[in-house]
């Protein structure tokens, strides 16, 4: 008894209905990387050119065959064309999209680029209903966010509003747990002991100074110190996000002014 699948194409945070068919095959047409070594199609089908919507899946020794099924059949699974990619020249700051396959999916076929700028690795998988949307909802397609490996999270209904500042979220590549842990450490930091000069230097001295004052060698939790020290300054050396004011109404533009105001 064959299982009816609804056909979907997943790329980053987008899920599109249907899988494109050309010349009786599901072609591999990457946007990044090279295909000079002729990677094969992902499946063959007797369907005409266009889009496959609902299919039965047959596995032969030579490959995967997709047979269109009737409109009245109720899909019990999803057939997902997963277009994983790593961006190339000119788009390098945009995150790459990769999927961690769990036991809930069955990989049917794959194709990948070889060399060139960027790369793509496509998979054809059989997955439970709702799988593609679950994956797409977790991928954050924002510049500088970093490459992401997304896994299926049952019960995940999509992104929710976060209380973490955007730059901190980017610094921790969307890991909210780690971001909150860092924010807690910052709140506990005795910033009055920070040396103004050391804290205003480059990455290495900033990092060393904060670790010295906090006594915590893992204070930054893997984030780039340059990306998060602005948050430390904002938390400890400004009130409600604005430069602190002295009694005469002037504002303090530097850490030194803030420390002097504190009587240090």
């Amino acid at each position: 008894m064959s299982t009816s699948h609804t056909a979907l194409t997943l790329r980053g945070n987008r899920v599109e209905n249907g899988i494109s068919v050309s010349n009786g095959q599901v072609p591999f047409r990457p946007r990044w990387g090279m295909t000079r070594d002729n990677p094969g199609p992902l499946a063959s089908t007797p369907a005409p050119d266009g889009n496959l919507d609902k299919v039965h899946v047959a596995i032969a020794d030579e490959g995967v065959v997709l047979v269109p099924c009737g409109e009245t059949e109720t899909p019990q699974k999803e057939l997902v064309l997963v277009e994983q990619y790593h961006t190339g020249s000119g788009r390098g700051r945009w995150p790459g999209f990769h999927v961690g396959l769990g036991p809930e999916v069955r990989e049917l076929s794959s194709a990948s680029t070889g060399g060139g700028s960027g790369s793509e690795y496509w998979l054809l998988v059989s997955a439970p209903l709702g799988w593609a949307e679950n994956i797409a909802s977790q991928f954050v397609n924002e510049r500088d966010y970093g490459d992401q490996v997304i896994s299926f999270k049952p019960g995940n209904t999509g992104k929710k509003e976060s209380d973490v500042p955007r730059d901190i979220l980017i610094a921790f590549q969307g890991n909210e747990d780690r971001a909150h842990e860092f924010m807690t450490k910052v709140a506990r930091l005795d910033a009055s002991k920070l040396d103004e000069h050391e804290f205003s230097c480059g990455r290495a001295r900033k990092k060393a100074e904060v670790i010295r004052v906090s006594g915590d060698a893992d204070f930054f939790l893997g984030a780039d110190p340059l990306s998060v020290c602005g948050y430390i300054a904002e938390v400890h050396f400004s009130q409600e996000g604005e430069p602190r004011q002295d009694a005469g109404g002037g504002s303090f533009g530097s850490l030194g002014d803030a420390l002097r105001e504190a009587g240090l």
Partner: protein
Amino acid sequence: MKLYQIESPGSSPALMKLETEDGKPLANITVGERGRGRHEGIIPIIGEGPEVRAKKTDEGVVLVRGDWRDGGQCLAAINAVGSYDRYRSYGIHDARGLQTVVSGSIAFGDAGRINGGEEVLAVVEPGAIFRLNSKYASTWYMWTGTEWRTESPGERKARLALQKVEQGGGEWL
């Protein structure tokens, strides 16, 4: 028989012109190269007509032009050597229905010792298939008796999978 040429692995077979650019009849065709570590084969062409047949003598093979009507066979000059790659396997692989008439060799390097392969003149039967390697890819060639078809290994596997399922084979998911 018609005379086709596959200039290099991956290229489409094309009918070989039996006249030069000046309009004079082609006197011979060459397979392979001359030089160290190489071998050249020269096949003279005589007669008139749109098609050719190969005639074997003790001294070699001659192509005779005429208005032949052979049953689906053709002649093909096949160059199996692609761009230079030290270790790429250049040759005619997995061949069925191919009979080599004259062979030559093409090689890289002054002494012809850093890789190379064959260039042949062959009689191709209807249903013949073979595979050629270019530097990065492979191409399957099939002669149906009237036309050539080419496909990549992936496309070939996909077509065979579809055939199997249409005949009732395979396993449903």
